[in-house]
């Protein structure tokens, strides 16, 4: 299905204050691929994701999602295809009741009320939060909020899932659940995270960004276990692989 291809050609982005956050990014993600984006604080990950969804428009270069080039005119349409899970679930859940929040997107898609109801129930079921349907989001624990945030996006049946730091602030168990959920999602995924272990678990492919440029693009197993490469980019081995190298065997 060629229409789920994400393609970036030499994308530059400068914030209005002059900060050059992206300096020529090009890559191509085909249908069903899962890609991890890693890099230090300020590398440009969030900026890149915001460009993908048309929240920011590249100052130079081209982005196309499917066969549609991204522009101010097409971004509404593209947002229907791209489901964006933001870094903090609190920003994403702005309605008073979980149900309403999940229904927000489908309603705006213009679906009938029965369809909306079906979508909401399916999405909440998928993340295991159907029982939270009538709760207000600010009474949920961080992990629950995260799951509901994912449901709000799933309810729109996106072709492409884009997530910014999905694992932060989760306790170990919730993090594990998230990983399993992500592994279960079969469409294209692009995930930015500092949690290299999660990337290693969920994404076959990994892109390392530094200072707004791509410095490496390849299989996660290869890149994330390449100590010199990681060192150069101010990263570290995924924790689950550190022990073997750094300390005496247990």
């Amino acid at each position, binding site marked *: 299905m060629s229409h789920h291809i994400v393609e970036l050609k030499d994308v530059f982005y400068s914030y209005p204050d002059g900060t050059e956050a992206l300096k020529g990014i090009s890559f191509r993600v085909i249908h069903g691929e899962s890609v991890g984006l890693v890099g230090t604080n300020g590398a440009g990950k969030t900026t890149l994701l915001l460009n993908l969804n048309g929240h920011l428009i590249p100052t130079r270069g081209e982005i196309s999602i499917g066969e549609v080039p991204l522009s101010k005119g097409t971004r509404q349409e593209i*947002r229907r295809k791209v489901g964006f899970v933001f870094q*903090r679930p609190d920003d994403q859940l702005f309605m008073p009741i979980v149900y309403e929040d999940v229904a927000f997107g489908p309603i705006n898609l213009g679906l009938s009320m029965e369809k909306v109801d079906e979508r909401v129930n399916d999405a909440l079921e998928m993340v295991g939060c159907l029982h939270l349907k009538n709760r207000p989001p600010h009474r949920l624990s961080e992990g629950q909020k995260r799951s509901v945030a994912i449901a709000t996006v799933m309810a729109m049946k996106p072709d492409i899932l884009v997530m910014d730091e999905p694992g932060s602030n989760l306790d170990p168990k919730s993090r594990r659940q998230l990983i399993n959920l992500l592994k279960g999602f079969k469409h294209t995924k692009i995930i930015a995270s500092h949690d290299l272990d999660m990337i290693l678990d969920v994404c076959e492919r990994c892109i390392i960004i530094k200072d707004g440029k791509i410095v490496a693009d390849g299989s996660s197993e290869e890149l994330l276990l390449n100590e010199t490469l990681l060192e150069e980019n101010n990263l570290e081995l995924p924790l689950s692989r550190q022990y073997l190298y750094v300390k005496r065997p247990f």
Partner: protein
Amino acid sequence: MTFDLEFFNLGYLDTLSNKDTLVHRIDPRIKIIVSFIFILFVVSFQKYQISSLMPFFLYPVFLLTAGDIPFKAIAKKVIVVSPFALFIGIFNPIFDTNVILTPFGIPVSGGWLSFFSIIIKFVLTVSTAILLIAVTSFPGICEALERMKVPKIFVIQLLFLYRYLFVLLDEALRMVRAREARSFGSRGKEIRTFIRLISVLLIRSVERAERIYRAMLSRGFRGEIRVLRRLHLRYFDIVFATGSITMFYILRNYDVVDLIGATLNRLLR
């Protein structure tokens, strides 16, 4: 999206204000007072006066260039906020059609004169206000206010406002983006949704204030915040102040422009 831009601009001016140049180093109190007096002088001109306002561009140009502020940034801001003055001013040519001048045989009505006078005053005063903050850090302005006997409670909450401005703008920006990602066109932007978003933001703000208060308490806060005093008047500050005010005074009371113009005129003949 325009609000995104305002937000970025705010950050940009803030960045500029943290530079270190001759003008940035002038005591904020001096800059506030001189700028204020400057504005008083500018608006004191009669409504048909245009040419005598020209020398007053010296002051903003000085702040701009000596403060190493990009011209484009200031020009853009001035243009962005001009509609209201334009809106009021544009009625003058309509209601005041008496021909006052006929330079080179072109009749010019009083309305147009006063319209341009408004526009020039507008550019002068607005650019000075922006330049003031571009060459003075906001905490500097607050300290100046405190030293100028503005009540401390007011100054301190102003500092808090400034501190959390960036944090909350960022939070709101992220909420707006989240809403945009799931609404298409004007759907999802009804007042009903708006009220919910704002309320959530409000609750979070209040909760944040509670957390800040806790942080203050745990560092020994007991109702008294002391503002550090770092400002010292220097020789140059005094020179700058007296120099500029004297200049404004001369420019206001002696029509330098006319003098130059008349002299040139005579020479040309």
